[in-house]
């Protein structure tokens, strides 16, 4: 059954394709979603958290995977950020969640990426985080921000 608020708040889907080492689209996607959220009049704190999650998740795809997609669903109650990639997968998620741990290449680190802060930043900014990964196949990351949640 349709809830009243659903009738008045738009459901928006934004989608981006991310290629290998395509760092620019990661920054660009976060900026574009940020703009959309600003137009919707979202709270500053929600916009900030969403932008950080998108930037970091998209960067992870650009840095580590062969290619992938970023999808952002904006609903009245929740913002969902989903990246799906074909890539090496994450052998040890617990280790990957540790701040400072990174498997990024030297070249990428010299650019200031691969600080080992991506996943910890995402976790800190999400209300829900789910990572599904298969070594040698790829990774799906789902992060949610609840809009009625007081954090």
């Amino acid at each position: 059954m349709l809830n009243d608020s659903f009738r008045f708040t738009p459901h928006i889907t934004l989608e981006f394709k991310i290629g290998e080492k395509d760092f620019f689209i990661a920054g660009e996607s976060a900026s574009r979603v940020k703009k959309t959220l600003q137009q919707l009049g979202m709270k500053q704190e929600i916009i900030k958290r969403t932008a950080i999650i998108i930037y970091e998740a998209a960067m992870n795809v650009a840095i580590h995977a062969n290619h992938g997609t970023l999808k952002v669903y904006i609903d009245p109650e929740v913002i969902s950020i989903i990246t799906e990639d074909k890539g090496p997968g994450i052998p040890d998620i617990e280790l990957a969640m540790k701040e400072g741990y990174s498997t990024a290449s030297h070249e990428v680190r010299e650019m200031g990426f691969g600080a080992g802060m991506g996943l910890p930043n995402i976790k800190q900014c999400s209300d829900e985080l789910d990572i599904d990964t298969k070594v040698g196949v790829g990774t799906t990351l789902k992060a949610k921000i609840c809009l009625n949640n007081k954090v």
Partner: protein
Amino acid sequence: MTLGELADSLGFEILTGDINLKREIKSGYVSDLLSDVIANIEMDSVWITIQRHINILGVAKLKDVAAIIIPRNLQLDKDVIEKAKEENIAILRDSRSAFEIAGLIYNALKKGM
């Protein structure tokens, strides 16, 4: 204090013309790790970094950074400067180290308040 006043009083070289010179500056951040900047830079800040590749502009745009300040007179590509102009991000440069630049800006902003 505006970016223009700050640049003028501290003698920074301005690489992007008039961009953001009238913008009010409240704070600054020094880091070369992009994730650190994304997570921690405040509103209306200048960002001091030795990173000079095009992706710093993505970070600056996302965080609405008023200006990127490059220390030690390090060189950067014309493409980056052109793109910064398009994206409305100022790029400044100075001969001093990041440490000195941060100290000078900190004091200038403190006095300005």
